[in-house]
Each structure stands twice: as structure tokens, then as C-alpha cells.
């Protein structure tokens, strides 16, 4: 069975928890003891109805304050696919949580209240999905029951969202009219909206084509760990372990190793079960080469005529994630990119983007919590990278505060120099 990882963005008011509750409930992924405990807590808190948000809001503070603080991961399966939901809170102060949840997603699900149409929050969610190059965006126009399942109103929301999305880069955009509360078009097609010819949400999630979303063209293998058994049976064994970050590798392939630039040939691709005839992302494998060259963690194996950019100057979009500090020009930070760690200097903040209006604020003094902007970075060592739009694995990085060790930013490479 195949996986689909999707992120949901929205707040309790949009009916997001109700929608997730319904997906879990209708696919029999909520267990009896979970439901009983949620019912008991709802009653104790004086709620009139069973508050399905309690299923996802697991922390004591979240229950007490009735809010979602963090990304929660939920799991369900149908006979066709397995699903991982990264459930993220929708308000602007949780932009970093949505960025986190979306970073591993194949698809983002945005909820829009049919009565209110496209609001600031919907635009922000669409922007983040496009920034993180999530290939599929599904807009669920919810609460259709409250507007008499009106086709015209649905089309207006659709039109409005489309107009905004044209400014963004979203390869696959779909719209589904639903009522999460009554289950219309969630699992089954609704009889109340005969005018809607598309599929139900669950059917869409089961069928959306994600296999070609990964980059299987540019062969990239960041060396993660060198396996040298040093026992009698495997005395001279030297394997380069790692996860394929792009393209396909086969025994006999001619390869180049960065930063040295030496070329060699793939002798074999090993696994515990035996040799593998072909390896592609995101497989974790061990590659052996025919020649003995000095290779260590942080090096990159690629093809001689298809190499990533190599350089110390990066252009990147970053989302700042720290409450206690802000990014200012000339700041020094630790960087982790593929399997490479080094230090960087922020040489310039070119602009900050207003995530609600897409307006660019040129040359800001700083980037604070939840702010997204374009920066220039200079690294202490050469990095082997691709543009994020070309490859999510070799185009992403994180920044770490060297004093507190906190992860303070997510970065997306947009170019070099």
C-alpha cells in the first residue's frame, strides 16, 4: 500500500477538527476507548456535543485552554491507501507549525467557510503551501449545509480562490463542497449536491496521483554514514550509507563525488537482504564504489554530467521560528543541509513578505517569529544544493541558534549568489 501525507490547516471555527474527526470516524480509525474518553471529557467540560477536537488536542495545556498548540500526527487507512495527517493550527501565530506540518506533506487541505468565502487565513495557507511547493492543494468549502447547498455560492468561492491562486505556484488545485458536520462529500458523494460532479474528499485523497511528484531525474546521494565493519568476514568492506535524495542509482553507473570531483563507478547497492538492482528516493541504502577514494559524511554522490550547484553563497526564503530572537543582518548561525552541517552568516535581508497580502516589505531590519522573507547567506563551507523547486531534499535547510541550540528557521533555496 502507498502512503499519502497531508497537512490540514484551519481553526476550530472552520470545522477542521470536525472534518478530521469525521474522516477518522468514518474510516473506523477512532477506537471505542478513545471515543469514550473524549465523551467523558466533553461532558466534564460542559460541552453540549462530543468535542472531537479533544481527540487531537492531547496535551494538558491544550485541553485546559481549548486550543491546539502543536502539530499533531494522526493515522488512518482505507483499503487503497494509508494516510498520515499533520494537523496544524490555523491562526497566524502558528505559521511556523503549518510550515513544519507541510514540510513533509504531499498535499495540503485548506478549509474555507462557505458563508465567509476566501478570508485572510485561506490566502495565508495557500501561500505557505505554494512556498513549500506542495504539489496538491485541496480547498474544502465547508458548511455547505448552512447555505442550502447552493451551487452558485460554491462557484463564487472557487472563483475568488482561483483568482488569488493565480499569483501563486500551485500545480494541482481542486475544490470540494462539503459539510463536515453532516458528512456530505466527505466519504460518500452527497445527494444534496447533485450539481457537484467531482469526487468526495476521501475518494480524492485515495486517488490523487503522487508517484511522479518526486524527482527521479537528478541523481543525488548525500553520504550520511560510512560503514566499515572491520571484522574478518568483511575486512575490506567500505560502504556509503544514506538516503537517495533524487534520481535513480544502479550498479555500473558512472558517478562523481563532491567536493573532490573524483569519478568512479557504482560497484553495488547493498542492503541487509542482498544487492539491489536499482535505488530511488526515499530508499535508505548502502552504495559501494569500484575505486578507493576518500569519502565522508556530508559528501555528495551524483552523476558526472548532472551535478548540483556548488557554492558558499545562497539565496533563500526563510521562515523564522524563534520567539526569543530575531534574524538580523550579520547574524551567524549553524546550518544543517542534507547531511552537511556548517556555519552561515546572514549577509542581507532583501525583503519580508506579508503572508496575508503577499506585499513585499523591502530591506526590513529583522525577521521575527512567524515572518517569512528572502535572505542572502554565506556559508563557511561549500554546499551541494539544488533549487527547492527542483528538489525538496537538496533545496531545504534548517538554521540553529548556536547558543540555545534551538531550531530557529526553515529555509528554502531559491538560487545561488
Amino acid at each position, binding site marked *: *500500500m*502507498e*502512503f499519502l501525507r497531508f497537512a490540514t490547516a484551519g481553526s476550530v471555527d472552520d470545522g477542521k477538527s470536525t472534518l478530521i474527526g469525521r474522516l477518522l470516524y468514518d474510516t*473506523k480509525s477512532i*477506537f*471505542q*476507548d*478513545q471515543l469514550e*474518553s473524549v465523551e467523558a*471529557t466533553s461532558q466534564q467540560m460542559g460541552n453540549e456535543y462530543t468535542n472531537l477536537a479533544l481527540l*487531537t488536542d*492531547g*496535551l*494538558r*495545556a491544550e485541553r485546559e485552554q481549548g486550543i491546539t*498548540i502543536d*502539530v*499533531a*500526527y*494522526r*493515522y488512518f*487507512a482505507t483499503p487503497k491507501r*494509508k494516510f*498520515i495527517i499533520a494537523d496544524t493550527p490555523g491562526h497566524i501565530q502558528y505559521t*511556523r*507549525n503549518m510550515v*513544519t506540518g507541510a514540510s*513533509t506533506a504531499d498535499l495540503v487541505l485548506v478549509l474555507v467557510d462557505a458563508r465567509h468565502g476566501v478570508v485572510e487565513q485561506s490566502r495565508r495557507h495557500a501561500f505557505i503551501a505554494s512556498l513549500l511547493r506542495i504539489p496538491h492543494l485541496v480547498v474544502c468549502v465547508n458548511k455547505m449545509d448552512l447555505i442550502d447547498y447552493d451551487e452558485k455560492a460554491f462557484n463564487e468561492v472557487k472563483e475568488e480562490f482561483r483568482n488569488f491562486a493565480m499569483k501563486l505556484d500551485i500545480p494541482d488545485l481542486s475544490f470540494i463542497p462539503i459539510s463536515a458536520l453532516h458528512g456530505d462529500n466527505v466519504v460518500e458523494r452527497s445527494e444534496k449536491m447533485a450539481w457537484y460532479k467531482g469526487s468526495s474528499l476521501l475518494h480524492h485523497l485515495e486517488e490523487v496521483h503522487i*508517484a511522479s511528484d*518526486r524527482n527521479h531525474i537528478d541523481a543525488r546521494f548525500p553520504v550520511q*554514514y560510512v*560503514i*566499515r*565493519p572491520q*571484522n574478518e568476514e568483511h575486512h575490506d*568492506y567500505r560502504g556509503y*550509507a544514506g*538516503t537517495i535524495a533524487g534520481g535513480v542509482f544502479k550498479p555500473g553507473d558512472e558517478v562523481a563525488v563532491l567536493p573532490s570531483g573524483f569519478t568512479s563507478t557504482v560497484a553495488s547497492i547493498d*542492503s*541487509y*537482504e*542482498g544487492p*539491489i*538492482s536499482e535505488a530511488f528516493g*526515499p*530508499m*535508505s*541504502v548502502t552504495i559501494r564504489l569500484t575505486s578507493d577514494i576518500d569519502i565522508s*559524511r556530508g559528501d555528495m554522490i551524483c552523476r558526472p554530467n548532472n551535478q548540483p550547484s556548488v557554492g558558499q553563497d545562497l539565496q533563500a526564503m526563510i521562515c523564522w521560528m524563534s520567539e526569543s530572537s530575531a534574524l538580523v543582518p550579520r547574524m551567524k548561525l*549553524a546550518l*544543517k543541509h542534507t*547531511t552537511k552541517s556548517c556555519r552561515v552568516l546572514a549577509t542581507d535581508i532583501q525583503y519580508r513578505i506579508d503572508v496575508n497580502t503577499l506585499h513585499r516589505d523591502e530591506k526590513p531590519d529583522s525577521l521575527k517569529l512567524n515572518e517569512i522573507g528572502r535572505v542572502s547567506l554565506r556559508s563557511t563551507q561549500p554546499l551541494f544544493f539544488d533549487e527547492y523547486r527542483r528538489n525538496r*531534499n537538496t533545496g*531545504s535547510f*534548517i538554521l*540553529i541558534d548556536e547558543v540555545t*541550540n*534551538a*531550531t530557529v528557521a*526553515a529555509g528554502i533555496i531559491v538560487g545561488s549568489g
Partner: protein
Amino acid sequence: MVYKNLRIAGRNQMSITTYELNHLDQLESEAIHIFREVASEFERPCLMFSGGKDSIVMLHLATKAFWPARLPFPVLHVDTGHNFPEVLVFRDRRVKELEARLVVASVQKSIDEGRVTEEKGPRASRNRLQTTTLLDSIEENNFDALFGGARRDEEKARAKERFYSFRDEFGQWDPKNQRPELWNLYNGKIGQGEHIRVFPISNWTELDVWQYIEREEIEIPSVYFAHERDVFLRDGMLLADSEFVKRSEDEELVRRKIRYRTVGDMSCTGAVESEAENLKQIIEEISATRITERGATRADDRVSEAAMEDRKKEGYF
């Protein structure tokens, strides 16, 4: 396009034209990536091993990650002294086969040394005492990263857990102040005395674990399969008769056909009535069940809605 079958990191055959990995292969790759990442970036990692199915799967994944080399870290067992005997035999054999180094941290020793006091009464359990023993062992051995087999589907506090979970010098988890985790880039930076708990199988469900055990033909202790045993009913759970539990007069012993869905201490792990004698039947049973594994079998989680969160904050697994 080449049409041929490809042997990938599992036992499954697939067509190479699609370049798709099935869910077990994806989960396996993700876990192996994390094992290797930790082995690269930390000085003194170790793998926490309880003898339960999740930690057995973890040991299997770790073996695969470093093959043909041996495990580059020791295996740590926090021994409450209340184990199922079958599980201890299993542990020792597995460690020997893998030529791994075993470190045992003993709760009995913590009690003898006065580090903790044994709980009293018929419901006494050593579950909570383990935290002190574990934290002492981390300090004694200078462990800086500890692999654990916790899964996010197990429990609602665990649903918020990271792959790399930061612990301060008191071993505490601060759920409100967790490091954001993006793509597959993990931040393993820590200061003196701090450590990271690492959960490579975070994204696995109970069913995934069983399907993987079946696919990989992983051996597991016999207590997971249906067998006859003397049990008694307490708080709606079937507990095994053992020297570690005091029965009250109205807790009558009965012989039932049972199996364990989770394996922890004999004193707080409940059994479920079952006819599942092999992996295929267990998978069928799990697919059809309407109760979560911890809900069915763990007295330690029944203390309150946030029992797991509270223990985790103190430094529990």
C-alpha cells in the same frame, strides 16, 4: 521503460516503472535514516530494549541500518525485576546472536540503594520507579541519545512527540517548547548533561508493526501468541498470576486462552482473550479491534487523562 521486477529493501516485488515504495518500505527507510543520523552525530547513543514487539522491531531496523557492521551502540534494558521470564530469555538470546553489548539498569538496585521507594498496596507497580533508574543510568553511562520504540498512534501525548525529543539535564520533556522538525533534517545539538530521545518508528501504527514482523519474519516472544494462562480480573483487565502481584480475596484465578498485545511489567500489563496463535491471525485480530492497545492492556495509562504526559515530563520513556 524497463519492465522487470526489482527487489527492494523488503521482500516485496514491485515494478520499477512507477518508482513507488509501499508503506512498509517507506517506514523502514525513514527509521533507518534516523538510526544512521544519530550514529553519525552523537558520541554515545544507546538503544532502549524492553523485549516488547516495538523494541524488537527497533533492534531489527538498527541491524539493517549498519549491516554488515555490528550495532555501533549498546542495548539498554531497564529491568524492573517484574519481567515475563519468556521475555528475558528472548532478550539474552537476541543480544548474543547480534554480538551486541547489553547494559542492564536495575530497578531493584535503585531500591536497594535507596534511590527510590517501592510502592505499597495491592496495586503497587514499579512502572514509575523506572524513570529514576533510567535517568541514573543515562548519567552513569553518559548516554547522549537514547532510541525508543514509542509510536505516535499509541497515546495522545505521544502524538505530539518529535522524532528527536530534547531532554534537559533533569531528563524532562517540555511539550510546549519542542524544536520544530522539518523535512528530514534533525537538530541533534545538545549541551552538557542534556540528551535526546529518538523515536525512529514514530509514524508506525500497531498494525504496521505486526505487518512488518510478518514480512520480515522477525521472531517475537511466545507471550504475544494465544496460550492458556491463569489470570484474574482487575479494573476490567486480565492480569497474569505471578509473584509480583498480590491478589485480593475476591480476585479469583481463572484459566483462559489469552495473549498479550503489549509487553511491559507483569504487574501492570493486561492480557486480552484471544484465539490468535500465529501472525496472520494476530493481524486479523488487530485489523478488527475497536480498542487501542494501551486502552486494552495498560494499567499505567489509566491513572488520568494525562497520565502519559505527566510521566513523560518527568523523563519516562
